[in-house]
């Protein structure tokens, strides 16, 4: 944990991954939102943990953007006392990314949840099976194509009459 001193910004990794890091957007309240190419996922996670000192993986979220699928990691640095968001866009036809469990073991349940709810598969995950949904459940409820109902249309009809 060499450079774990406070104040180490994520832009320090730009030289290490000139191709893999697609950009770092400012995000108020955090160290930024780093967009990366899923191909470098595991190497980037290692660098983020060891060079930048983000030892705590707080959250893995999947977001369905219909054309693509986003996977978002929130990591926390005790030394810098701030979060960093890591975001990757995955192709919607076969969304997959390397599992972060090798770097942050706490990713285990987060990735199981993202896998079953948003249909993102995590390569080399030790135990990818249903967590919140029944075993063998056929649907991924947090995809946009999984419709609950159409409240907007219903309400408009009622008001127009």
């Amino acid at each position, binding site marked *: 944990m060499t450079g774990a001193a406070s104040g180490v910004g994520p832009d320090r990794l730009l030289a290490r991954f000139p191709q893999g890091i697609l950009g770092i957007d400012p995000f108020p309240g955090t160290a930024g939102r780093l967009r990366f190419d899923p191909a470098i996922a595991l190497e980037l996670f290692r660098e983020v943990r060891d060079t930048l000192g983000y030892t705590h993986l707080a959250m893995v979220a999947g977001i369905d953007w219909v054309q693509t699928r986003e996977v978002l990691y929130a990591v926390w640095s*005790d030394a810098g006392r701030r979060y960093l968001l890591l975001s990757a866009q995955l192709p919607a036809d076969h969304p997959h990314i390397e599992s972060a469990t090798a770097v942050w073991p706490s990713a285990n349940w987060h990735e199981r949840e993202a896998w079953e709810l948003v249909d993102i598969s995590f390569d080399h995950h030790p135990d990818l099976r249903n967590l919140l949904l029944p075993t063998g459940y056929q649907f991924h409820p947090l995809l946009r194509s999984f419709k609950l109902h159409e409240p907007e249309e219903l309400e408009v009809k009622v008001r127009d009459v």
Partner: protein
Amino acid sequence: MWINMGPQHPMTHGLWNLRVRIDGELILDVDPEMGYLHRGIEKISEDRHYNEIITLMDRTCYVAGMAWETLFVLGAEQALHVTPPERAEWIRVLSEEIQRLGSHIMWYAAFVQDLGLMSPFLYGMRDRDLLLDLLQSYTGARMTYEYNRVGGVRNDLPSGFTDRARKVCDWLEDRFREYDALCLGSAIFHKRCDGLGVLKAADCVRLGVTGPMLRSAGVKRDLRKDRPYSAYDRVDFDVAVAEGGDVTGRYLVRMEEMRQSVRIVRQALDWLDRNPGPCLAENLPRWLGAPYAPVGREGYLLRRNYPKGLGFSAIEEPHGEALAYVVNEGVEHPYRVKLKSPIFVNLSAAKEYLVGYRVADIPPIMGSVDICVGEVDR
């Protein structure tokens, strides 16, 4: 041999199943099975107006609804570019600390009952009622408050509230001494808690464990101090830590946290007495400020030029670090709401703090984790 402890078992304090592989009395492996209480809160949120989601947040964790409301509105405010007035921030601090006291006392009552000590349960429930009375007097509800709003809080405190709250603070500070005498002075308590369910600091960090479990291992991480939100940068309190990372350590951390919460409540009451003012932002967009969003063409015209945004909020919930990520795509309901529950992660580490102990140790160890299945399953 695998046995099921749950989904109906006094140890679970909720609806979940702990599968345990045992050899005689020795625990060899565990596998928590979750999902019995999965209501799809994140999915339902995609179809609801921001202020309607607050209803769902109360149900996310049914002993700490106020904390989850605050978490969500903080995220939504960032996504929607809304700033709450200062008084609302202080009322949020006050509400959250009253909620933390209520949650910890509920934990105390349930946990000590697991150990076979019946009287502390009754005392705990009696004292928690006073806190619920306080919350009821300004939110109108004892459990599902629907009190926070994007841009502030729904209404101000009623007259005479601060004096009543101070009386409750005085009462509680005396009771904490009794709680400690009942537990730390009991041989049963020490026999069933000391040195059990140990999770060292390095393991906590590796497994993402947060909250009182992490602080009981000696790590001084509390988002109220490290990344202050609402008015926490303006209150004075100490972060409770203990050594050892065992069940007794978690008890000590929560007890100290309750004393610190009373300190924070007193400071918030003093500030609120001195500084009257609005508690809801005045420049809210009309479609957001209304109790129900205008729908149809009217609603569309109102919100069509509203800027998009992303919100990320983190709070120290009674159980640990809770996060929310809110995606605002310029319509009256969020595109995506992601919630991260601290117990979800604390429970995922169950194998580390259960294997090697005896079956009879499971109730005190799992009790000390303070499980609320509502927020694990969402």
